[in-house]
């Protein structure tokens, strides 16, 4: 019996699928997901700009009597941006085979992500208006809440990756799960920069 026939007989399950795409299917899936997310955020931004353009008091923004905690949100932005740096550090560490760096990077990223969410909840509690208070309040909570939900999803992904990292699942050659979670986390950060700059600063 030839080696080929022997190997074919030992193989169980369906044959390995042909792959034409130059991009890995898992990365392609994440890319398509992010593209759909960008469209979702796009629809919320459309609502925000619509409210802003049609508001008769558009010269003063946010409209009276709303006031946004720009400084607190700025500190929160710094925390989230820093979490992207630690995420990148975690990835770079595992690419060099440094598992301790991966664990520390993921733990710091999760801690900063949690700080961001906690600060946002405190901000909501003290902001002085609620979702039903005029259209501005609706789009403000809609956009920042949508982003907060994404941070929560990102944190869930990172937590799973951290558990796997602490169990020793990742090596310098096999760390695809962390890579995908990292892409998502950077996307969440990018969206926050756009949200913060648009709603709080501009």
């Amino acid at each position: 019996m030839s080696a080929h026939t022997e190997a074919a007989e030992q193989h169980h399950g369906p044959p390995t699928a042909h792959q034409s795409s130059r991009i890995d299917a898992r990365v392609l899936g994440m890319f398509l997901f992010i593209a759909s997310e960008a469209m979702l955020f796009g629809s919320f931004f459309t609502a925000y700009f619509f409210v802003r353009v049609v508001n008769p008091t558009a010269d003063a923004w946010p409209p009276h009597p709303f006031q946004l905690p720009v400084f607190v949100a700025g500190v929160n932005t710094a925390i989230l941006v820093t979490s992207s740096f630690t995420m990148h550090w975690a990835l770079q560490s595992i690419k060099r085979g440094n598992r301790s760096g991966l664990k520390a990077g993921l733990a710091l990223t999760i801690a900063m992500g949690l700080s961001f969410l906690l600060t946002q909840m405190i901000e909501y509690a003290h902001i002085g208006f609620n979702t039903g208070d005029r259209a501005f309040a609706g789009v403000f909570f809609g956009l920042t809440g949508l982003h907060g939900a994404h941070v929560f999803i990102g944190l869930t992904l990172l937590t799973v990756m951290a558990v796997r990292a602490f169990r020793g699942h990742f090596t310098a050659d096999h760390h695809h799960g962390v890579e995908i979670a990292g892409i998502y986390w950077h996307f969440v950060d990018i969206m926050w920069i756009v949200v913060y700059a648009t709603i709080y600063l501009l």
Partner: protein
Amino acid sequence: MRNPFRSEAEAYRFLLLTIGAFTLIVAAAFVNRWLGVAVWLLVSAAAVQFYFRQRPELPVRAHVEHVGPEDERRILVIANETLGGESLRALIRQRAEGVSEQVLVVCPALNSPVRHWASDEDGARAQAQARLDACLEALAQAGVQARGEVGDADPLQAIEDALRTFGADEIVISTHPEGHSHWLERGVVSHARERFDATITHVIVEPGL
């Protein structure tokens, strides 16, 4: 287009660019609102230019070396829908006449872009294999012993893949005439001449023949 989320490193670079861009936009908007809008437009145009206009570097011209005995002629044929064309078969017969020949026919598994990106190419490969089998049978009846392979959907990539194991003296690319051929529209023949230093022959097969 260069995908900004292709990998974590690319996404990180995109994040840094976003931070830089929004710092500029916010700074400009504090000076003057319309200046902020102008900077936003400029930055967006620069990002589009960077991510959409970036072309991959062309591969270096590959040297194709003859492999096998001196008196042997190796012909690599790349064709898809024109595999059954009489002019292609005639050319292969003519080239193989009077010499010891090795003919490798490669049929790219052409697929729709959506199926290609989703790696759903079993159907395309099966169709290519069916066309290839019919062509090899017709060549065998004409007295030409050829072997065949289903290749990459990109004909240039299919040629490059085949050349790795088959040092061809001549590459025959078969297409429909101008106006009917996607390969000619994409400049496959001219690109192949730039990319491979073997003799490249272009055969035109009329549709329906």
